[in-house]
Each structure stands twice: as structure tokens, then as C-alpha cells.
């Protein structure tokens, strides 16, 4: 009896140990590839605050090529032309870009930085929605780095130390299937008309999706609200839901093709790129920026302070903010942050500028305190308004 008990004990311990080892093995941290890329001047790439400080572009390129790869995250290939941007970067510098979970959200990007601190799987660069750029900077997650064209970025769209700056953005627009909808709406006021019953959709839930949030914000601006007051926008969608015009389904290219969401409120760069995609499928997708509620929002680029490939991360930034990179965003219908200065000096690609949906005036942006305030209001009041 005793002997058998011992055996059982040993077997049990062995099994448990094996199970535990298997479970913990995949969670083990790998050591970070030490930052060996020091330039001739002895400046480390991980602390370089500009290409010049590192000893010039050539030194940066050489150091980045030595690292050989770049960890990107949450860059969908069909979003703002990121697919082509990644391809061109790889071809130009012979550096492999690993784009992890292309459809991830900003919150996932931040948690990838914090949870993989010191690992070589951590993202090198992130593309964040507002206000994740500001909150990430205040948590000390980003490295200060100024690209060559930093001074040309409008003051309202960058962190003074270069912890983050806007890269591209767009306006909330109304996409409309001209074959199914007789007269396409051009304003938020239009959308209230009974003829649009069961046709108007957002691309998700405004408490989760940045573009749906922008849609509610733009509707607030159209209805006497403001950057500090989003309630009129919530009420507007409540009214739209009651009249049966607004359907809460998440609009995707698939639902548009199916005819389920013939009117979709979304960023203009997404709607405009869908128009190209739909043409081949016989859908005539018209895109207008509503004149009564113009709301623009830009995304921001930032470098992870503990980037496993610090030189490649900085080279990526230089590429995005070069004329080539900015024009590639433009090709994807996104409005690059340097568009005003590039229009002035004639380096913006005119064919693509002509394709952008028309807007008037220059965009203004809410302060992050405004955003925090309205998001709290939205979280509490949205469900009630549309249920």
C-alpha cells in the first residue's frame, strides 16, 4: 500500500510539474536584444532625439539595417494606404516590417507596450487615436524624437518635445449608395428626412469605435453642441433611432454591398477608399463631408521608449514624415499632417489632392480635457438614447 502511495505521489508531482512547465514556457520573457547600434558619435539610437543627433540619415539607415526588422502593430493594409507604405519602406531600406494584429485598437497597442516591456516582441512604433497619444506620453511610454520636418507640423498637432505628433487624419463623412438612395444626403439635417428610413449606420459603437465617436461628435457640432458638449449629438442619434432611420448595425464593406447600410457615417478616407473598391462591384459610392458638422480627427505616431529596434523605429518615423510617406497617406485619401505646407511648396501630389472630399476652412481640434469630459457623458448616456 505504502509503496503504491509513494508512486502515486511521484506521478502526481511529475504530472503537475510537466503541466506547469508547459504553461509557463510560452510566457517566459526573452531578453531584449541589447541596443548595440551606437553611431560614430557614440550616440545610442535609443536616446537619439533626431537623425542629426545620431550622425545623419546615412548613419541611421545603416544602424536600422543592422537591426534588420521593425515591429509595427495595428496597421490595416487597407487603412490610409498602410499596405503600400509598408511595402515601400521594406523595398527602400531592406528592413522587414512585422505588422502584428492589423485590426487591433489603440488600447491594445498601449497594452502591448506596457505588458511586453523589455521583450523583443514589443512594438517599436505605434499609430494611436486621440487621446491615447497624450495618455501614453504622460505615462512615459514614448521616446522624444523629432523628424526632419518636425517644425512644419502645425503646433496644435504635436507634442512640443516630439513624444507624439499627428500623422494623418480625415473628416467625418457621409457615404451613400447612389443606386439605392435617390437623393444622397449632404448634411446631418438631411439624414432626419423620412426617406432615409432604415438606411443610416455608423461603423460601430461610439463607445468603442473612433469613427463612430467622431460621427456623434460631428452631429453634436451640427446641432448647436460644441467640443465640450456632445449631448446634442447623442440626442440627435436618439431621434434618428426613434424615427427608424438609424440602424445600430456595424457598417462594413460587406453590409454596404449587401445594401443593408446604404448610408454609412465614417472617416472620409475610409469611405473614399471603399468607393474605389465598390466600383468593380457595381456600387456607386458617393462621399460628402457634411457641411453642418465638420469634425476632423488625426491619428498620431509615437516611438516606444523601449523599442527593441530603436534605429529602425526612428527611420520609420523619418519615412512617414518624408514627402514620399506623406504622399502615400494622401494616396489612401487620408489627409497627411504636412498637407498645408506641402500644398504651399507644391510637393503634394495634385492628382490625389483633387480626389479628396471637399471641405471648407481649417479644422479645429478639441482639447484632451474636452475629450475626457464628453467621453464620460457618452459612456453614460449613449445606451439610454438609442435603446
Amino acid at each position, binding site marked *: 500500500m505504502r509503496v503504491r502511495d509513494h508512486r502515486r505521489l511521484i506521478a502526481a508531482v511529475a504530472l503537475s510539474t510537466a503541466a506547469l512547465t508547459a504553461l509557463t514556457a510560452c510566457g517566459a520573457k526573452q531578453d531584449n536584444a541589447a541596443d548595440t547600434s551606437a553611431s560614430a558619435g557614440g550616440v545610442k539610437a535609443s536616446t537619439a532625439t533626431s537623425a542629426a543627433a545620431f550622425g545623419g540619415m546615412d548613419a541611421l539607415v545603416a544602424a536600422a539595417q543592422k537591426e534588420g526588422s521593425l515591429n509595427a502593430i495595428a496597421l490595416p493594409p487597407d487603412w490610409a494606404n498602410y499596405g503600400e507604405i509598408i511595402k515601400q519602406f521594406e523595398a527602400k531600406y531592406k528592413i522587414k516590417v512585422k505588422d502584428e494584429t492589423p485590426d487591433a485598437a489603440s488600447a491594445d497597442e498601449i497594452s502591448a507596450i506596457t505588458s511586453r516591456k523589455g521583450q523583443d516582441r514589443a512594438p517599436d512604433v505605434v499609430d494611436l487615436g486621440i487621446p491615447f497619444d497624450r495618455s501614453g506620453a504622460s505615462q512615459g511610454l514614448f521616446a522624444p524624437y523629432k523628424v526632419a520636418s518636425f517644425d512644419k507640423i502645425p503646433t496644435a498637432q504635436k507634442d512640443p518635445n516630439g513624444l507624439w505628433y499627428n500623422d494623418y487624419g480625415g473628416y467625418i463623412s457621409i457615404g451613400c449608395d447612389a443606386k439605392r438612395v435617390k437623393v444622397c444626403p449632404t448634411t446631418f439635417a438631411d439624414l432626419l428626412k423620412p426617406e432615409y428610413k432604415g438606411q443610416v449606420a455608423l461603423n460601430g459603437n461610439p463607445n468603442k469605435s473612433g469613427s463612430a465617436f467622431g460621427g456623434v461628435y460631428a452631429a453634436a457640432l451640427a446641432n448647436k453642441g460644441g467640443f465640450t458638449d456632445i449631448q446634442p449629438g447623442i440626442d440627435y442619434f436618439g431621434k434618428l433611432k426613434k424615427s427608424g432611420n438609424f440602424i445600430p448595425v456595424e457598417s462594413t464593406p460587406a453590409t454596404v454591398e449587401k445594401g443593408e447600410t446604404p448610408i454609412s457615417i465614417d472617416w472620409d478616407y475610409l469611405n473614399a477608399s471603399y468607393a474605389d473598391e465598390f466600383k468593380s462591384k457595381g456600387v456607386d459610392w458617393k462621399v460628402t463631408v457634411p457641411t453642418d458638422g465638420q469634425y476632423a480627427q488625426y491619428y498620431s505616431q509615437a516611438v516606444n521608449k523601449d523599442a527593441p529596434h530603436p534605429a529602425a523605429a526612428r527611420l520609420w518615423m523619418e519615412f512617414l514624415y518624408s514627402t514620399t510617406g506623406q504622399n502615400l497617406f494622401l494616396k489612401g485619401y487620408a489627409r497627411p499632417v504636412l498637407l498645408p505646407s506641402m500644398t504651399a511648396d507644391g510637393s503634394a501630389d495634385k492628382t490625389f489632392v483633387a480626389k479628396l472630399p471637399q471641405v471648407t476652412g481649417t479644422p479645429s481640434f478639441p482639447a484632451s480635457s474636452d475629450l475626457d469630459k464628453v467621453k464620460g457623458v457618452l*459612456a453614460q448616456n449613449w445606451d439610454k438614447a438609442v435603446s
Partner: protein
Amino acid sequence: MPSDTLPAAPGKPVPGAADGSRRRRRGSRSWLGTLPLLVFAAVCFGLPVGFVVYGALTTDQGGATHATGANLSTSLHGAYLGSLTGSVELSALTALIGCVLGMLIAQAVVTSRRGALRESVLTASGVLANFGGVPLAFAFVATLGISGVVTQIAHLGSAGWSLYSFPGLVVIYLYFLIPLMVLVSVPALDGLRPQWREAAQNAGATTGQFWRHVGIPVLAPTLLGGFVLLFGSAFAAYATAAALVGGSVPLVTLKIADALSGNVQVGQENVALALSADMIVIAGLVMAVYLPLQRRSTRWLH
């Protein structure tokens, strides 16, 4: 024993049940055999639960972690409370309907004499019970959406039908809950021995009396367990609802996603963890009601 077929969490062996007393005489080391299971459960289940509860009760401010009850109280007020009640209502209703319909379909399949029907229903149930997420949502959009095929043919729109509402979600959830119930009921119904029915008839019982005094009591553990299983499946479902109703039907899983992995809400992670803790408590309460009932009803089988 039909209750063995339940994937729901098993209770302790019934006191005085066949093998309980024999086991106790075996040395005190016998628990060692369950050690691997216990370790596995502690790592894969205990750790995450601990993390959720810890996160729900703390807040990170300026790098320091403080204990607080604020997250839990936030999660039990306003829109968050509405989402909890919304989820419980939807899950309880769909689990109830799913239980009844699933049991009836299973009974029809078991009593039919066609082997082919039985095989095909069981296979289809196995597939459909695992059909969910965005593909399921889109399948329904294409059939029962506003411009869906069925909606157009049957003019459901004018009859007040809307897929993007509470009733719409009920229909979709039943689409995968009923097959799940069929899967767990068939073995139990197979266990209803024809001899019992014959004996009841010989003793002069009507069909109604047979079901009231024999059939239902014997099936009770399965029905109860099935309800708990369906409730849990519906309660934890997320992707389908996220694609269809956004925030217009408040559900706790959608709220957790908003707070945890969105592009809009910032710094709400601990509220999301508090909501998860609330979900665990609700699931625990359901189990607390279920286990005594289960124990009571399995008594019929011994």
C-alpha cells in the same frame, strides 16, 4: 446516469451515494490523484480570477496602486448597471426558451424511429451550437436584416420586425442555444427506459401523469443543467451582439470591450475588470441556486 452527460460543473458526490463510503476507506493520500487537475485549475482559472478581482479593487494613479471600491460602485451604477441587467434578462429568457424547445426537439428525435434523422439532427446541432461571432451576425443580416432576403419576401419590416433589437438578439441566440440543448438532452432522453412508461401504463397512469411523476423528475437534472449551460453561453456571448446592435441593446460583454479595448474610452480598464468580477458573481449565484436543486433532483435517480 443522465446527469453524467452534462458539461456543467458537477457537484460533490451525493452523500451516501454508491461509492462515497468506499472511497473514504482508501488512504488519506487519494487526493493526490487530483493534484494535476487542481494545479491546472489554479493556474488556468484561479490566476485569471485573482487578477480580475485584484484589478477590480485597485486603481493605478501616478504609478502607485491604491485599493478602492470606486470601480465596483461605478460598475453597479447608470449605464453599466443597465448592461448587467440587460445581459441577465437576455440570457435568462433565451436559456429558458432554448431549454424547452431544445428538449422538445430532442424528444422528437429520440422517439422517431429513423436513424438517419437522428444522426443528421445531432450532426447539425454539433455544428450550429458552435456557430457564432461575426459570420453568424452577417448570415442573419443577409436573411433577416432590413434588406434581408426573408424580410423582403415575407414583408417582415411592415410587421414591425427589426433584427437590431432585443427580440432580434433573442432569435439569433436561440439559433445556437437550441442545438446546444439538443446535444445535452438526447443522452438523457435515451436514458428514459421504455419499461418505466410500460410500468406506468400498466398501473393505469395517463401520459400526463407519466410525465409529471416519472419523466420530468428524471429529466430535471438535465433540464436544470441545460438551463445553466445555456445561460452561461448566452451571458458570455459577445461578437454577434457587437456586430449587430452596437450600444442599442446594453450588454455587459459589450461594455467590457468598450472599456478594455476600444479607440475611445481611456483609463477604464479597472472598471472593465470590475464588470468582469460582477459577471463572475452572477455566474456564481446561478450555480449557488443550481447545485442544491441539482442535488435534490438527482435523488430521484438512486
